[in-house]
């Protein structure tokens, strides 16, 4: 078992899920409530990581992260380190790649809220902020949990983008998925087997949790 790789993977998954939570809540709500037809553009951008080959995505991110590119250059000047081949780099890549997994379930949940509920809350005297906290947020919670779980599970399994941007530096950028690949390459199938079983178990539990939570809520009507 590659313990440092497991720690990198878990750290990456936790930070990615946590980092995307608030932006995804904001963006998912905005997209759900927007009535303009131009919203297909931001929606397509959000969905893009779903359909792009991970190596292509990783290739572009690698270019953007290099010290010659504007983004990588600014990072280099601010921190004195490179984005490529660093944990910060794979975290940033992971945040970008996981945008659809975080935003879409939350957007769907907000879309399912009838407009009347918000209006009824305003007419009852609740401020927009109070309306969000005590009416909207509890009702979209299953979507939020789905988003977190999917982001977490997907980050654990991400391979191509992380490898392109981070390489496989022990304890820094080598995740469990990359470690499995390396062990298979080195004909250590027993280690690869154990780690694969672990990832399988985590994925299964995550999906079970998502399905369990999005199934029936006490306040939802039976159909």
């Amino acid at each position: 078992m590659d313990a440092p790789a497991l720690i990198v993977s878990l750290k990456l998954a936790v930070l990615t899920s946590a980092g995307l939570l608030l932006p995804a809540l904001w963006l998912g709500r905005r997209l759900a409530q927007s009535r303009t037809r131009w919203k297909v553009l931001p929606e397509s951008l959000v969905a893009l990581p779903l359909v792009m080959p991970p190596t292509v995505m990783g290739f572009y991110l690698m270019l953007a992260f290099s010290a010659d590119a504007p983004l990588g250059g600014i990072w280099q000047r601010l921190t004195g380190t490179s984005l490529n081949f660093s944990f910060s780099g794979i975290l940033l890549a992971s945040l970008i790649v996981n945008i659809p997994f975080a935003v879409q379930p939350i957007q769907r949940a907000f879309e399912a809220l009838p407009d009347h509920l918000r209006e009824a809350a305003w007419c009852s005297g609740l401020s927009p902020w109070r309306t969000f906290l005590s009416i909207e947020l509890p009702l979209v919670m299953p979507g939020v949990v789905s988003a977190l779980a999917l982001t977490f599970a997907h980050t654990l399994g991400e391979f191509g983008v992380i490898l392109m941007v981070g390489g496989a530096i022990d304890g820094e950028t080598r995740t469990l998925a990359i470690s499995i690949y390396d062990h298979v390459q080195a004909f250590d199938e027993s280690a690869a087997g154990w780690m694969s079983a672990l990832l399988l178990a985590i994925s299964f539990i995550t999906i079970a949790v998502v399905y369990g939570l999005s199934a029936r809520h006490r306040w939802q009507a039976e159909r």
Partner: protein
Amino acid sequence: MTLAERPAGQQGEGLVVKLSQPGPIPLDAEFYCRPGELLALVGPSGSGKSTLLRAIAGLYAPARGRVSCGQETWYAADQGHDWSPQQRRVGMVFQDYALFPHLDAADNIATAMGHLPRSERRRRAADWLERVNLEGLERRLPRQLSGGQRQRVALARALAREPKVLLLDEPFSAVDQVTRRRLQRELVQLRERLSIPIVLVTHDLNEASALADRLCVLHAGRSLQQGAPEALFRRPASPAVARLLDRPNVFSGRVVATSQGLRLSWGEWCLEVAQGLDAYPVGSHLTWYLPASDIVLQRSDRPSRGIRENLVTARVDELLVLGGQSSVTLRVPHEPQPLRFDIATHAARRNGLVKGGWVRVSLLAAGIHVMQADMLPSSRDDDSP
């Protein structure tokens, strides 16, 4: 004409609404509602009723106009003055009730009690549930309540805010008829203790005339006429209003001068009209309307002793027995539109009314209401919901 009946000095008391805009939802409406009064906005779907209600609540801002309540101006388009729904303090019952699905009945009501200390809200919510006959259901979630119970919770939530205006958007449309009657009766009882303006939106004319002190008839966003239901049903301001109020017996005629004075020429008959005819020059074409209650069947077995004015002979085209009442449709030779009236079923039997037979009816001169002939709403499908 719409505000003609408005008493002087009304400004500053109750709810006063004057809103207009060319589109996207055309509006040109003006009405008021006194404290304690129930005003029904009636009209077919798409007539702008719900939009006007939302504009009163602050959920929609038309391009032009004003909304004021008591001494407060809630909306003044020309001054860019627009209070939020929270500031306006309206109680709104939505058509689908819009109860918060994750909160129980008491918490749904307590949500609207931001003006009370937190500790008091649950107890007061229970009081409200008792007032709407739902005692003991505090802990039920909306999905565990019947349609009628949900409507009562929504009404209690609207009133728990201690609103300055109560707005009801088709509040009885989502329940069965038995529940609807009961809820309507409860609303009438509840009204006795309310001294705020109440605006009810409905497309059900029976409901509107049974519950409202006054009706405001809307078509395509325009307020065409307002007044007490009985007044509107007897004297619609225009043929369009008569159609929107689903009145039968709207015909065209011509003013003629006879030796006995002005008469209304209708086919072969010259009808006597109690009032209004002298406002029109001789020869002019106009539209006239007769409430069904002012058509009197003449007894066939003996000459009538009573009213015998405007006797007309007509053929029975249709006779529908609807329990104790029968609906009679008559045809007169020259007129494409039928004459319709209701009669007690036993009276129809006693008079030997049969389909295809001929009868004599009196069209009461006092009931005939003459109107400027104008464009009628284009087609019947305007009226379907």
